[in-house]
């Protein structure tokens, strides 16, 4: 068990014992390898189930929405930025949440690890510093951690929680080392036909399970536009125009709000790269409005305010 896990458990136990919070939201070991699950610890004993590994890819901020009582929540950089966003959007009250900030070492991509062992079944993955140990029936191999990180974690700019009541362990390096501008909006250099071809091939396998929407802390509408029947904005089947409409609008709803936490891609059962769209929006918002979501509680989200000198005021 790593040091951070121990510190998280100790902090969670203390908060629950002192009665400062009703619940600590964190991660517990998943029922399958390489996928930790969100976990709600209500008692000091339950706090012993909390873990911190490279597979904590769910965005816990999602669970603060419509939640009653006082909750403590474990938050790495992206999650804390989403909490800031939820507070700004009046979905969460700052005083109702106790944020346990933590430094993210960059989370791992289970898909990439599986791809390294195409014909084998992985039963356990252990992290050992900058390496991971992958085990299965009859094999054990070490991989460089850097090689199998999630794409969004390479270009992360805020690995430490930006808002917290207590920091677990030490703050670490802020960036993942990569430059987002080298990978954001990958289709920008293509012509319209090539762009459409890329878009089609990226999203055609979608089965509309809505996992990407459900794990996203930005998606909290009472009735999502794809679920609405009257009016029905978008067909509910697997016809391509409907599938594409869902993805275009899902992404657009994230404009100026997405923190590139990568939960959508991690949750997708068919490996769709939604960040091809969200990274374009993130880049546009950053370049046109000089804004990065969720860094402070004061700056208003660009698309919620009007300024006469907005770059997109029609001529």
């Amino acid at each position: 068990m790593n040091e951070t896990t121990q510190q998280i458990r100790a902090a969670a136990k203390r908060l629950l014992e002192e009665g400062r919070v009703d619940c600590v939201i964190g991660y517990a070991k998943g029922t399958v390898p390489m996928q930790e699950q969100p976990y709600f610890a209500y008692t000091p004993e339950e706090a012993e189930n909390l873990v911190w590994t490279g597979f904590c890819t769910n965005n816990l901020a999602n669970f603060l929405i419509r939640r009653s009582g006082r909750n403590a929540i474990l938050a790495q950089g992206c999650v804390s930025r989403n909490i800031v966003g939820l507070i700004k959007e009046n979905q969460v009250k700052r005083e109702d949440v106790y944020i346990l900030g933590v430094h993210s070492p960059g989370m791992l991509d289970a898909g990439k690890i599986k791809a390294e062992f195409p014909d084998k079944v992985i039963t356990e993955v252990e992290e050992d510093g900058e390496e991971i140990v992958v085990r299965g029936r009859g094999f054990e191999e070490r991989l460089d951690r850097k090689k199998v990180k999630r794409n969004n974690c390479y270009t992360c700019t805020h690995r430490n929680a930006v808002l917290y009541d207590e920091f677990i362990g030490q703050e670490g390096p802020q960036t993942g080392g990569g430059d987002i501008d080298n990978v954001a909006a990958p289709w920008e250099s293509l012509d319209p036909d090539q762009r459409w071809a890329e878009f089609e091939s990226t999203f055609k396998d979608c089965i509309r399970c809505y996992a990407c929407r459900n794990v996203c802390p930005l998606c909290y509408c009472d009735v999502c536009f794809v679920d609405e029947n009257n009016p029905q904005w978008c067909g509910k089947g697997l016809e391509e125009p409907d599938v594409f409409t869902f993805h275009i609008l899902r992404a657009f709803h994230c404009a100026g709000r997405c923190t590139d936490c990568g939960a959508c891609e991690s949750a997708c059962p068919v490996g769709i790269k939604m960040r091809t769209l969200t990274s374009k929006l993130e880049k546009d918002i950053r370049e046109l409005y000089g804004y990065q979501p969720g860094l402070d509680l004061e700056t208003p989200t660009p698309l919620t305010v009007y300024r006469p000198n907005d770059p997109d005021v029609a001529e």
Partner: protein
Amino acid sequence: MILKNLLEYIGIEPGRVHFSWISSAEATKFQETAKEVVSQVRELGPAKRLVKDIPMEAA
């Protein structure tokens, strides 16, 4: 602009989608914009992307 950029980014032809801010008092601007939209879209021809064919009997 953000939405237009996104649509063009995924391959919707430039000129297919237009956004404009027109006040209810700006009749002339509305007329001019409508003309411009029609001529540009006509030039592009029928849309082939994001088009769903619904059979007449089902509609």
